[in-house]
C-alpha cells in the first residue's frame, strides 16, 4: 500500500467504464443507518421513562409495550444502524482497497432494499410479539417458539440469505483483488461477513429448535457476544485501519501488530460468549474457559489500541482541528475503558455483585455507542461532504453533536455503573426488592436525562446531514485534504 494510494479519495475514480465507488449506495446506507439510529434511540429514550413510571404508552397499546419497544431499541441498533453503517462504509472502503468496484450495482440496490425490509419486518414482528428471547440481534424466526408452527415471515432465514448476498457482493471482488498482498482491513472485513453468517446460524437459529436449557443458554451467550466480537469488532477495526491512515495521511504504526491482533481475535473471541451467564447451570469448566479467554481477548484488544495511539503519535493537533479523528480518538479511549472494565467484571468475584444490575447496560452503552457508533459517526463526518460535494451546512452543529453525545454518554456510563454497584450491594445484603427499586429511581432519572442529550446530538447531526445534502452551501473544497489535517 503506497502513500500515494492512501492520500487519494476514491470518489470520482473509475474502473473501466464503471465508477470505482457507487456513491448512491454509500449514501443510501448512511441515510438508512441514521434513520434507524434515530428510531432506535427514540425508542430507548421513551422506554427509559418506564423506570419511573412515566412511559407515555404504558398500558395504552399492546404493540408498543415496554418489552417490545426495548426489543426494537436493541435490534434496530444491531441490524439497522451498525450493519447499515458498516455496509455503507464498506462500499466506500473496499473498492479503494481492492482497486476494483464491488460485484454489481443492481445487486447492491437489491441488498439495500432487502435489508431495510428485513429490519422493518423485524421491528414490526417484535411489535406483534414474534420475539426470540435473545439479548440483542434477534429477528423473528417466523415460527412459534420451539416448534415448527409458522406464525410470521421467517426473517431469521431471510437475514441469512441477505448476509450471503452481502458476502457475494464484497468477497468476490476481494478474492479477485489485483493486489497481491491483502491489507489488514480486508482481512477484518471479509472475516467479519463470514463470521456473521456462521454466528447467526449457530447461535440464533440452531438453539431455538435443538438446544434446550444450559446448552441453549451457552450457545445463545456465544451468539450475543460473537455478534459483538466476531462481527461488529472486526468490521470496526477493519474500517479504522482504513480510515485512520487515510485521514492522518500516514501509514499505520505496525502492520504486524494488526495481523497479530486479527489472529488473536479469531482464536480467543469465539469462546467468550458464556460470560453472559456466569454462575448459571452451565458446566463450570465452560464458564472458566469463557472467563480466561475473555481476559485474554482484552490483551488482544490492546494491539489495536496501541496501534492507533502510536499512529496518532506526533499528530496530536488533529484532535483539535479534525473532528473525525476526534471521534475516533474518543471512541478508542472508550474502547480501552470498556475492555479494561470487561476483563475485571468478567471475573466471578465481581460477577457476584454486578451481574443482573445496571452496570451491564452501562457497559453495553459504552461499547456500542461510545466505541462503534462513535467510529461510524466519525467516518460519516468524514465521508458525507465528499459524497454530496457540499461543505457541512453548519460545522458548529457537528461540534454540538460531539459534545452532547460525549457528555450524555459519560453521564449515562457513570450513572449506570454507580447504580449497578448500589443494586449489587443492596441485593447481597438482602434488602427488600422494592427498597432496591426505590434506591435506583434517581439513577434512572439521570439516565433518561443523559439519553435525551445523546438523542438531541444525533437529531442535530441528522438535520446537518439533511441540509448538507440539499446543497445550499458552498462546494466542498477538496484542497483541504491536501493541506494539513484541518478537517472538521
Amino acid at each position, binding site marked *: 500500500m503506497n502513500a500515494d494510494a492512501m492520500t487519494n479519495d476514491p470518489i470520482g475514480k473509475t474502473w473501466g467504464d464503471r465508477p470505482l465507488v457507487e456513491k448512491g449506495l454509500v449514501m443510501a446506507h448512511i441515510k438508512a443507518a441514521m434513520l434507524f439510529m434515530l428510531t432506535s434511540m427514540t425508542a430507548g429514550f421513551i422506554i427509559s421513562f*418506564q423506570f*419511573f413510571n412515566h412511559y407515555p404508552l*404504558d*398500558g395504552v*397499546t399492546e404493540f408498543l*409495550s415496554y*418489552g*417490545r419497544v*426495548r*426489543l426494537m431499541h436493541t435490534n434496530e441498533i444491531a441490524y439497522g444502524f451498525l450493519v447499515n453503517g458498516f455496509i455503507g462504509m464498506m462500499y466506500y472502503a473496499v473498492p479503494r482497497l481492492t482497486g476494483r468496484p464491488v460485484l454489481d450495482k443492481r445487486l447492491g440496490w437489491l441488498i439495500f432494499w432487502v435489508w431495510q425490509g428485513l429490519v422493518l419486518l423485524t421491528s414490526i414482528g417484535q411489535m*406483534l410479539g414474534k*420475539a*426470540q*428471547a435473545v439479548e440483542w440481534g434477534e429477528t423473528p424466526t417466523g415460527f412459534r*417458539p420451539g416448534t415448527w408452527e409458522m406464525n410470521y415471515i421467517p426473517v431469521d432465514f431471510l437475514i441469512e440469505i441477505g448476509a450471503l448476498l452481502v458476502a457475494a457482493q464484497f468477497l468476490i471482488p476481494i478474492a479477485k483483488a489485483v493486489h497481491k498482498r491483502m491489507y489488514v482491513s480486508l482481512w477484518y472485513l471479509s*472475516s467479519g461477513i463470514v463470521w456473521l453468517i*456462521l454466528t447467526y446460524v449457530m447461535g440464533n437459529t*440452531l*438453539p*431455538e429448535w435443538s*438446544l*434446550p*436449557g*444450559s*446448552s*441453549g*443458554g*451457552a*450457545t445463545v*451467550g*456465544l451468539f450475543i457476544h460473537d455478534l459483538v466480537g466476531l462481527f461488529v469488532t472486526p468490521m470496526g477495526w477493519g474500517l479504522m485501519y482504513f480510515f485512520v491512515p487515510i485521514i492522518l495521511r500516514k501509514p499505520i504504526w505496525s502492520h*504486524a501488530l494488526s495481523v497479530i491482533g486479527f*489472529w488473536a481475535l*479469531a*482464536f480467543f473471541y*469465539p*469462546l467468550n*460468549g*458464556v460470560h453472559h*451467564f456466569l454462575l*448459571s*447451570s*452451565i*458446566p463450570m*469448566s*465452560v464458564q472458566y474457559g*469463557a472467563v480466561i479467554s475473555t481476559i485474554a481477548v482484552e490483551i488482544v484488544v490492546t494491539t489495536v489500541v496501541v496501534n492507533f495511539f502510536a499512529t496518532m503519535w506526533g499528530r496530536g493537533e488533529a484532535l483539535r482541528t479534525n473532528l473525525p479523528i476526534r471521534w475516533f480518538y474518543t471512541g478508542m479511549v472508550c474502547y480501552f475503558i470498556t475492555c479494561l472494565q470487561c476483563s475485571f467484571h468478567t471475573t466471578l468475584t465481581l460477577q*457476584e455483585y454486578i*451481574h*443482573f*444490575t445496571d452496570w*451491564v*447496560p452501562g457497559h453495553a452503552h459504552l461499547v456500542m455507542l461510545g466505541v462503534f457508533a462513535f467510529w461510524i459517526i466519525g467516518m460519516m463526518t468524514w465521508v458525507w461532504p465528499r459524497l454530496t460535494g457540499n461543505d457541512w451546512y453548519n460545522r458548529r452543529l457537528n461540534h454540538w453533536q460531539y459534545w452532547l453525545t460525549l457528555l450524555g454518554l459519560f453521564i449515562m456510563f457513570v450513572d449506570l455503573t454507580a447504580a449497578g454497584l448500589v443494586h449489587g450491594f443492596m*441485593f447481597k445484603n*438482602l434488602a427488600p*426488592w*422494592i427498597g432496591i*427499586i*426505590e434506591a435506583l*429511581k434517581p439513577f434512572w432519572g439521570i439516565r433518561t436525562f443523559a439519553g435525551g442529550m445523546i438523542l438531541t446530538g444525533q437529531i442535530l447531526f441528522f438535520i446537518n446531514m439533511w441540509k448538507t445534502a440539499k446543497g445550499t452551501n458552498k462546494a466542498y473544497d477538496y484542497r483541504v485534504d491536501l493541506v494539513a489535517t484541518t478537517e472538521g
Partner: protein
Amino acid sequence: MDKFNGILLVAGFGCFIFAFLLSGLYPIIITDATNEASIAELATVILPDYEDLRDGWPVAFESGFPRAEETLSTVGLRKLEQRLRKEVAAGGLSQAQMDEQVAAAKAKSDEAWPVAMAAALQRGRDIYISEACWHCHSQYVRPVANEDMRYGPVSTIAQDNNALQRPMLWGTRRVGPDLTYEGGKRSNDWHAAHLHDPRSTSPKSVMPKYPWYFREGFQVYRRVSERAADLGGLDPETAYPYPGIYDSKADAEAAMARLAAELAKDQDLAPEAERLFVGEGIGPNADGLALISYLQWLGTWRPEDTRKEAKE
C-alpha cells in the same frame, strides 16, 4: 507469515467450531439432554393453582384451552359429589350409580387436565417471550450473593432441561425479582391484579401494565345482606362477585338464572337467589390465564440432578 495463511484460516474456523462444541454440546453430553422433558410431560402434574384458576375464571378458562370444559377442580368435584348425594338422599339415584358417575367425571377430568394445561403453559411461555419479560426478570438462581436465601435452591442443569426452556429464558438483568421459583409463591388473584396494574399491589413497582391480557365484561354479583352490612360496617351496596366474566350482558344474565335456580333448590341458600344481580366486571382473558398458569408453573418441575458430580 503469508505462507501460513491457509493453516491459520483453517485454525480460525476450527476455533469457532471448538467454541460451539464446547459450549453447546458439552452440556448436552453431561446432562443426557436427549431426554428433554416435553411440554406434555410437564403438564401432567396438576397444581392446586391451576384448579384455582379454573374455578376463578371458568368462562375464559373453558373457552381458552382444548378440552378445558371437561376438567374438574377439587372443589368442582366436591360440588358434584354433594349434588349427587342429595339426589341419592332424595331417592332419584342409587349409591352405585352415583359412584359410577363421579368416577366417570373424574376419569374424564384427569385425562383432560394435562391437555388443557400443556396448551396453557406453552401459550403462557410464548407471551413471556413476546412481552420480553426476560428483559427484567431472570430465571436462574446463582450460588452467590445470598440468592438462595432470597429465592430458593441454586439452579441445576437438570431443571433447565425441558421444552419450556427452549429457547432458554434465563435473562440477564433484574429490574424485577427472579422468577425461577415463582410458582406457588403468590396467589392467582395477586398475579391478576398485579399484571393488570402492578402499582395496585406493589405501589413502588416500575413494571409496565398489561391490560390487554384482561377483558372487561359482565359478572354475576351478590349484594351483601343487611345483617352482614350492619355487622361489618359495610356499605349495603357492597357486592361480592361470583366467578366468571361474560362478554355480553345476556350471557351473564343467563348464568345468573342458572345460579338462582340452583340456589333455590337448597333451603339454606334460597334467600341468596334474590340478592343476585349482573354488573360490570374485569378478569384475565385466556392469554392472561395462560400467562398466570405459566408463572405458577415456574420452579415446580424439580427433577433430580443427573450429573455424575451431583450424584456423588
